């Protein structure tokens, strides 16, 4: 084991989120202990008090909704070598980034006593506020994928992300195609691979939480959705569940 002060320092930060991506890191279990051998965790709000040291690598989960969060990110950016957005909320705003124009009214409805007293903006991805070195999508992130990426970053190399559709992984699993044979509106053909086709493997069409891969052909899939009987509004709602902000 190397001496503690020689280890690269890792910080884990949570913005507006469900904390799922950091929870997924604690789910690494035995691998977590291996990771702790390699890095020193200097900040992890959920499980230990902050040490006050700045990290070399910062993993940030959650969307930006507060001025304070944006300020925190700007400060963090100056201190760290790699700033990594983890989870779909940090990458795109996530499942909560919906209804930008309706938000004020929603706040008034949900909190009638205080109305707009809350300062809470439309959920933005981390990259809207500061440059991000790397993004790890997923709602939540996949542990194996994260470890793979950290392996690269610890060696000073920015990893590549899979740039092909989920269908590739789904096929490799030997699944029956839900879109073709069961007429279910699966987003696999346009969604970035990386989750190992979790949903199709247990009989549910992909909801697209990894976002689009480059060159994804949305028009072609839209046409297939029409053929399996989806209306225009249903098609729009399929795409804007996770896949794009709406």
């Amino acid at each position: 084991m190397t001496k503690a002060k020689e280890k690269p320092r890792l910080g884990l930060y949570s913005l507006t989120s469900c904390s799922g991506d950091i929870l997924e890191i604690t789910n690494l279990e035995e691998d977590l202990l291996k990771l702790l051998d390699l890095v020193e965790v200097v900040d992890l709000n959920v499980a230990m008090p902050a040490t006050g040291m700045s990290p070399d690598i910062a993993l940030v989960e959650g969307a930006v909704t507060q001025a304070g969060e944006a300020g925190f990110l700007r400060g963090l950016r100056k201190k760290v070598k790699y700033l990594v957005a983890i989870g779909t909320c940090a990458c795109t705003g996530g499942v909560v980034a919906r209804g930008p124009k309706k938000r004020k009214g929603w706040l008034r409805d949900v909190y009638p006593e205080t109305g707009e007293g809350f300062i809470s903006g439309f959920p933005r991805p981390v990259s809207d506020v500061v440059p991000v070195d790397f993004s790890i999508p997923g709602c939540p992130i996949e542990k194996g994928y994260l470890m793979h990426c950290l392996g690269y970053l610890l060696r000073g190399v920015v990893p590549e992300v899979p740039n092909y559709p989920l269908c590739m992984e789904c096929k490799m699993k030997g699944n029956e195609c839900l879109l073709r044979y069961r007429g279910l509106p699966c987003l696999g053909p346009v969604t970035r691979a990386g989750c190992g086709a979790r949903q199709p493997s247990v009989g549910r069409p992909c909801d697209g939480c990894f976002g689009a891969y480059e060159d994804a052909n949305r028009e072609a899939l839209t046409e297939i959705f029409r053929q399996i009987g989806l209306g225009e509004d249903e098609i729009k709602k399929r795409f804007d569940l996770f896949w794009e902000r709406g």
Partner: protein
Amino acid sequence: MKKELISRVEGHGSIGLKIKGSRVESVELDILTPPRLFEKLIVGRHFNDVPTIVSRICSICSASHRVISVMAIEDAFGVKVPREAVLLRELLLHAETLESHGLHLFLLALPDYYGYGSFVDMARDLPDAASLGFKVKGIGNRMQECVGGRAIHQITPVVGGMSAGPSSEGLKRIQQEAAPLIDEVLRFLSKEIPTLQYTPLVGVSNWVSLAGRDYGYTGGDILVNGKEKVPVRDFYQKFHESALPPSYTKHTLYGEEPFMVGALPRILNSGSKLKGSAGALLKRLGIMKSRSTYMNNMAQGVEILFSLERVVEIIGDLLDIDLPEGQDGGITAEFSPVAATGTAAIEAPRGMLIHTYTFDEKGYVTGGDITTPTAMNLSDMERTLMIMAEALIKDTTDIKPALETLVRAYDPCISCSVHIVRL
């Protein structure tokens, strides 16, 4: 104003205390986890997407949110769910309880009991405590993967039943792992655990949980203080919500009074139904008599045993049935959407959780309400923090650790920073 972090709880929040001389003027717990407006996000959505959206409210409780969301929709449409699917969902809820209680009791709360700053420090001297925590949490996670398709934001519970059955291999492995763990947990928790010096100071005044026929996490009416029954549908008549700035979480009151939900209230209402090693540990700990808020942690220990025992039992039942596995087939009932309102309640690890939705005739949401256990506990946390601060302020200058420990005893989904304002 001093701002310090309380770690080892989820989310963001702060405790504000106003102290004048040796008098505590006010206590305010602000949950600053920003509003994510889930009740609004689901309006206009198809019922199939609702569980997917609302499970993102909380990662630790995602299985509870997904299952209760599906159940509230089924309540609206009048769906009768196949028995196998009901058992699989129950298994999933036990899995979540193991994951959540394992993390909270062993890794977040026990360091308080033993006087360590974090589980990392505790693990150096007491490797058993930490490793048992990882074991309990680990089996919960693997069960959620096996039954739910993922440890966080589970996939399989769908309106009507389950989209797929678990592999029987996976179930057998869990059963084999769970059985010896029961003894290990019982042995550890029966040992002398240093109890907190302030334990006698704060007690539960009102306690609320669902209480069905058995000690379980679903079914039955809402039971208040072991006596008054409130049908789940009447929740909104008896319980009231409000949000006051700058807290983003709504406070819920029973009539005009604070109340507590969670493991301790469940034990107080239904503990007498516990048998086996859970029942044995409960007797030993004397939780029913002490009624101390701090006992919520030990109540979680009792529930870890209850869940492990139930898991072994349910898997035994399931293995006798020939379940469809993986992609090969779901276990679902036929139904069609109707214009109606549905409400359902569940015992999430942190306490009672209620979802209500209204649908149009095509199954699109027109309105919804979600009341979480942390919102229900907020007022009671403020009540006990006040008592605690007043009791300690006279002879201690640093009351922060005691207050942090008290907040953690509730196992809230928030992490807190303490601002203490001395006037």
